[in-house]
């Protein structure tokens, strides 16, 4: 799925940057270094915002676009940070046929957050996931590890109210 730009303000610390520079230095001269650098950068920051990609671009003398191209090609890389509350709706086969797409749409409307992005205050992130293995409870939604099964659109508002 096409990746969404983040609207969350970058809150990187000098410690995180020092760690990132260490990672980049570690891979100096290594062929095919961009994948491990991006993976470790994401471990440090939780996602790969433009500020982080720019540091990597400058230090590795790689065009920013090339890095962005990689970050948007692989689904493992995130352009948005996890929200304080990370909301996920399963779009695996069982959940999907039980109407999880409608639930997802309702949550998106309720939170004002597009699927695949994070609210600009950093409070909520919304993701559509593949099968999470709880097909018996389909359709399933999770919020920070709390599992909500047999979801209907009507329940969305009430559940989200607990996480305000």
């Amino acid at each position, binding site marked *: 799925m096409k*990746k969404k730009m983040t609207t969350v303000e970058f809150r990187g610390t000098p410690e995180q940057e020092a760690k990132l520079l260490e990672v980049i230095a570690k891979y100096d001269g290594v062929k095919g270094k961009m994948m491990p650098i991006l993976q470790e950068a994401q471990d440090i920051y939780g996602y790969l915002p433009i500020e982080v990609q720019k540091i990597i671009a400058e230090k590795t003398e790689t065009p920013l*676009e090339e890095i962005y*191209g990689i970050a*948007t*090609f692989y689904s493992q890389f995130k352009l948005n940070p996890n929200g304080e509350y990370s909301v996920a709706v399963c779009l695996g086969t069982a959940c999907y046929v039980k109407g999880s797409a409608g639930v997802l749409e309702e949550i998106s409307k309720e939170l004002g957050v597009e699927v695949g992005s994070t609210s600009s205050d950093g409070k909520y992130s919304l993701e559509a996931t593949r099968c999470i293995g709880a097909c018996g409870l389909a359709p399933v939604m999770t919020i920070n590890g709390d599992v909500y099964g047999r979801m209907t659109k009507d329940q969305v508002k009430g559940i989200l109210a607990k996480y305000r």
Partner: protein
Amino acid sequence: MDAVNVKINGKDYAVRKGMTVLEAAREAKIDIPTLCYLKDINEIGACRLCLVEVSEGGKPYRMVTACVYPVSEGMSILTNTPKINAARKTNLELILSNHEKKCLTCVRSTTCELQKLCNEYGVDEDYFGGERKHYELDTSSPAIIRDNNKCILCRRCVAACKTMQGIGVIGANDRGFDTHIGCAFEKDLGDVSCVNCGQCIVACPVGALYERDDTDKVREAIADPSKKVYICTAPSVRAQIGECFGYAPGTDCEPQMVEALKMLGFDGVFDMNLTADLTIIEEANELIGRIQNGGKLPMITSCSPGWIKYCEHYFPDFTDNLSTCKSPQQMFGAVMKTYFAEKEGIDPKDIFFVSAIPCTAKKFEVGRDGQSASGYPDVDVAITTREVGRMIQKAGIDFRALKGTEFDKPFDIGSGAGAIFGATGGVMEAALRYAAEIILGKPLEKPLETPEVRRQNGSDEGYRTASYKVGDMEVRVAVASGTKNAKQLLKDVEAGKLDVHFIEIMCCPGGCVNGGGQPYQPASVRNTVDLRALRAAVLYNDDRNCDIRESQKNAAVMKLYDEYFGKPNSHKAHEVLHTHYVKRGL
């Protein structure tokens, strides 16, 4: 030659080991269609139009992509079987299924490589229906327009930008059906450090990239009775324009070009070789001044607006090294709206000045700060060779039937030194012809030729250096074309590995003869013909046959100094003919 024996369509050939099937077939004069393949810079086997059947070691035939598959001993290659034709046709239908088929009004209609192949293979344009992507037109750049609805994801533009020019502001974003060519973080082309060189446009096989068309502005000005509309043509336009009308690359069409422009209704058609000469006088004096007075060295040429923007973005510490001279195009406009306007008693606001150039970056240059000597923009519109060709065609002028005529006075004279501006090394050679005379204090017996700084045919890798002893002075110079080579050159200067006085840099590989505004040539030509050499030959031929071969012998330029500027680098000259730069960064 380390050779391998292969069979192509049943016939035996001995070909060089390591060749691809495509190269081997081309040597055997057998054409295999390609779409994404650009020799040396984009060999990725993505479009799958070059499918052929090969059999190795007696095994059954299987399909491979000829552009990346190497030949092997005893290989049998079939390039034209029903199975291959059916596969190629299906691949074309798949490409076409997500391509906006507005061919009637497409700028690339008749020069589109996809259109030509679909025609040859009899492709039904709607064989695969289904979802189609819709993208906004990116019109943010003053020079280049991107229409991703027509993009076929061949990545030739990406290769031109990243691999050839060493810039890389465009690339493939997202994946699968969402894949599209764009800039980092989906910024528009006008908001990234693109230098507007236009090499992506000439690399594009379809109409996904094209220059901002300014021909309507020119037509409107011509139709406006309150405007005096003049045009000047850059050195390389005469060496390219014929290609718009079916002439072979390397045909000099100066007289027909001038006649056609006059027929379009311009009030005067002038030769930009003249302000190339003016640039030389100003620039060489600036150089000598910097050498004698301890100014910033090395000094770097400033004629190429793509190079200027590259320097401002990627090497901002070098902006003080740039000559402050405006480019020949801007000097011409400045002279038109000051000297010429005064002399002819025309209000500069009533002059509409057009420049015809092989360059898309010039469209950005006309809007820069410090490019309006009269208070009005020096140049109103810059149009590429392609746009000039389209204007002539649309006006119903039979270019090939024209007898040809000469440029208009008083700006009809250009020296051989001015002509070679269009080829890499030309500005350097022209400057040296003049500087030698100034340093020695007397004319040379014959015009200086400096083959050391000219392009060696077939190659645009790296940069060239030379050293000339003139009187007591040693002048060390370096020349690069293509921003990738410029980067290497500047890094060597930074590292202290290269110590020279004067550097010529052209943004496009090979110089303006290979500019981003040149007529389209399909990959089948680009991959097999050295276009840069053919077109540059026109300019070097002009130089050899020109009555005057040195800028200082251009009587029209000398008259400008006598009547208006006084002497080179005078206060007046600085006001009108010089400019300043910005440190942009990334």
